[in-house]
């Protein structure tokens, strides 16, 4: 037994024990939110198996535990990316210009549900949802309005779009072309992560196989034509929001990534050609150290998978470039201003976790589309953190904490065990189809709810320190404008009357032929959007071939 080990035991059995006997600890067991047991104290004994050079290394070098870039935030701060987009294209354009003036360095578009699901604003199924959770885009005309006066070679744009991602990307390319910006110059991201739609977010249209084909069409097309585009943002964030714990979030995100990479390789693409353009997003939940450890473990595990499993040679293939999002499910409607503090914690987790872009939620988003004041405060939170706190002055500042290093190892081990299990099932697509992933997430979500019920998990304002019922009517909340839906319906109607019908028919027929001919669909989709074919019309051509997917209801 080492001297340290015997010292530790002595401390535990004498000094600590005597204190606990006099005044017991606050609870019988301490654990992270993912259920990893937490001891009173961590020492070098807990990381005795680690090898600094192998497991941590240096920023910008394999296995990237300490950061994906050599100088990290000393060179360039993270991108402060706020999510906006509501109502009409004009309003979204105004909000974007405002955010750019305020120093925001990247745009992020939220689309309404009909746009995400391939329905035009005048489709009966879209009723009540037009312009509600994001901006309504029916055709290229709306996209042109959104980016009016915003040169696409000066901004990077992230689009939260999945099932209809090829259509929206095609529109972005067309807007660029009309501004004189070649597609080779465009920078930004399409979320384009359909697998997590089947397991977490529910915005899928087509069955899994053709959905994957569409996603991979973007990867393949951009590889040749839009080389600076981040083709997929593989999202753990939504998996977490659906109820997964930190370990599951990491494991299922990487399992999705593995599935995409295998599909791309099956198309004959070389891993080092496409992998550098995949990016990732992970959630910031409640447990500060667990989240930071998760981000560190994620970089290391991913780099090892890329190198060992996929034989990546280009270091850029091994970089887990991440966007961190504040988990809206941690926000509480009761005493809503408390959310400002929670969101500050999220931003801190993101910065200590070494993300390339950070999103901060708005404190009022549990009620409605955020107000301008709340959106500004969310951005200011990041600016205060970046410029006033010193958190960005050195790289990976929590490294070397016995606790954080222990958790990093533990999370990596546990996530790797999940990946082995999923491999044994035949891969992520099979694991999803069998209902396994859904069950795992649901069990975690129920466990979390039961811990809230029992008071074991404390949520301030909700199950402890409640105030008398707050009156949300007194808050200044942005209300979506009821006039948006009729206006947008009118617009799409007018567009159909205005455009050249021959071009539209020809564009849609070419798309039909491309689907039939198993071609990459991007060129045909670009042609169709330039003819002002609508999101609904283009999606309808695909529906005719593939049908709509209905998830099995299994409870």
């Amino acid at each position, binding site marked *: 037994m080492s001297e340290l080990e015997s010292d530790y035991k002595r401390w535990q059995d004498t000094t600590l024990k005597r204190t606990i006997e006099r005044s017991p600890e606050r609870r019988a067991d301490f654990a992270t939110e993912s259920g990893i047991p937490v001891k009173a104290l961590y020492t070098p004994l807990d990381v005795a198996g680690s090898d600094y050079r192998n497991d941590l290394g240096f920023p910008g070098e394999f296995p990237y535990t300490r950061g994906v870039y050599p100088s990290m935030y000393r060179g360039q701060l993270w991108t402060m990316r706020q999510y906006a987009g509501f109502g009409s294209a004009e309003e979204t354009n105004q909000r974007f210009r405002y955010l750019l003036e305020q120093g925001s360095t990247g745009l992020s578009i939220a689309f309404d*549900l*009909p746009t*995400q*699901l391939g*329905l035009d604003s005048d489709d009966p*199924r*879209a*009723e*009540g*949802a037009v312009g*509600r*959770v994001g901006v309504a885009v029916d055709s290229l005309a709306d996209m042109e309005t959104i980016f009016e006066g915003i040169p696409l070679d000066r901004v990077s744009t992230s689009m939260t779009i999945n099932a209809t991602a090829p259509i929206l990307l095609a529109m972005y390319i067309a807007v660029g072309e009309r501004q004189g910006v070649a597609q080779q110059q465009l920078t930004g991201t399409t979320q384009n992560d359909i697998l997590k*739609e089947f397991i977490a*977010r*529910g*915005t899928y249209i087509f069955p899994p196989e053709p959905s994957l084909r569409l996603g991979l069409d973007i990867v393949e097309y951009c590889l040749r034509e839009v080389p600076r585009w981040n083709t997929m943002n593989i999202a753990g964030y939504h998996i977490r*929001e*659906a*109820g997964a714990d930190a370990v599951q979030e990491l494991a299922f995100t990487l399992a999705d990534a593995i599935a995409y990479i295998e599909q791309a390789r099956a198309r004959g693409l070389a891993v080092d050609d496409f992998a550098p353009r995949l990016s990732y997003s992970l959630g910031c939940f409640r447990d500060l150290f667990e989240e930071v450890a998760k981000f560190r473990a994620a970089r290391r595990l991913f780099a090892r998978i890329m190198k060992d499993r996929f034989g990546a040679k280009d270091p850029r293939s091994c970089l887990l470039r991440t966007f961190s999002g504040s988990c809206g*499910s941690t926000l*509480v*409607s*009761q005493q809503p201003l408390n959310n400002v503090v929670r969101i500050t914690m999220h931003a801190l987790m993101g910065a200590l976790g070494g993300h390339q872009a950070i999103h901060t939620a708005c404190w009022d988003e*549990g*009620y*409605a589309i955020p107000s301008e004041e709340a959106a500004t405060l969310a951005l200011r939170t990041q600016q205060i953190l970046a410029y006033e706190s010193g958190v960005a002055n050195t790289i990976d500042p929590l490294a070397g904490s016995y606790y954080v290093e222990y958790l990093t190892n533990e999370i990596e081990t546990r996530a790797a065990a999940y990946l082995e299990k999923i491999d044994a099932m035949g891969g992520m697509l099979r694991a999803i189809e069998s209902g396994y992933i859904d069950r795992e997430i*649901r069990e975690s*979500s*129920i466990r979390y*709810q039961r811990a*809230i*019920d029992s008071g074991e998990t404390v*949520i301030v304002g*909700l*199950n402890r320190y409640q105030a008398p019922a707050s*009156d*949300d*009517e007194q808050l200044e*909340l942005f209300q*979506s404008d009821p006039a948006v839906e009729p206006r947008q319906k009118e617009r799409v109607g007018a567009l159909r009357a205005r455009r050249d019908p021959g071009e539209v028919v020809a564009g849609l027929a070419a798309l039909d032929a491309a689907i039939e001919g198993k071609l990459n669909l991007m060129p045909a989709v670009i042609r169709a959007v330039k003819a002002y074919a609508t999101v609904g019309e283009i999606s309808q051509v695909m529906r005719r071939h593939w049908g709509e997917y*209905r*998830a099995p*209801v299994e*409870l």
Partner: protein
Amino acid sequence: MGDKAIRVLLAKVGLDGHDRGIKTVVRYLKDAGMEVIFTGLRATPERVVDAACAEHVDVVGLSFLAGDHMVLAPRVIDGLKKRRADGVMVLMGGVILKRDVAALEQMGVKRVFPPGTPPANIVEFIKRNVTQPQ
């Protein structure tokens, strides 16, 4: 109250895919011995009304998190009335502002549960308020 299990139809109406909350409610109601049918995502108001009548449920629970409740919930309520199924208790949950709650209750929604409601309260509410013929 009879010995027969309370029958509940839970539905996601509209395009929104956030089903964590409603799936949690499914579990709690089942654990409390109720018979629960869940529509899955993207049910139409018409399908919910049809299912509620065909399955002779005591309760219909609707979950909304995308702000479309004032358009879609009335269609369920009116549909139930037209089918003379207005004895079915309609409950709602999700992100619904207080100013909408009064209007919904006026239309016949028995209770709107806000975010953060302990699921056990929903179980209790249903048990207390459903009266079944013997």
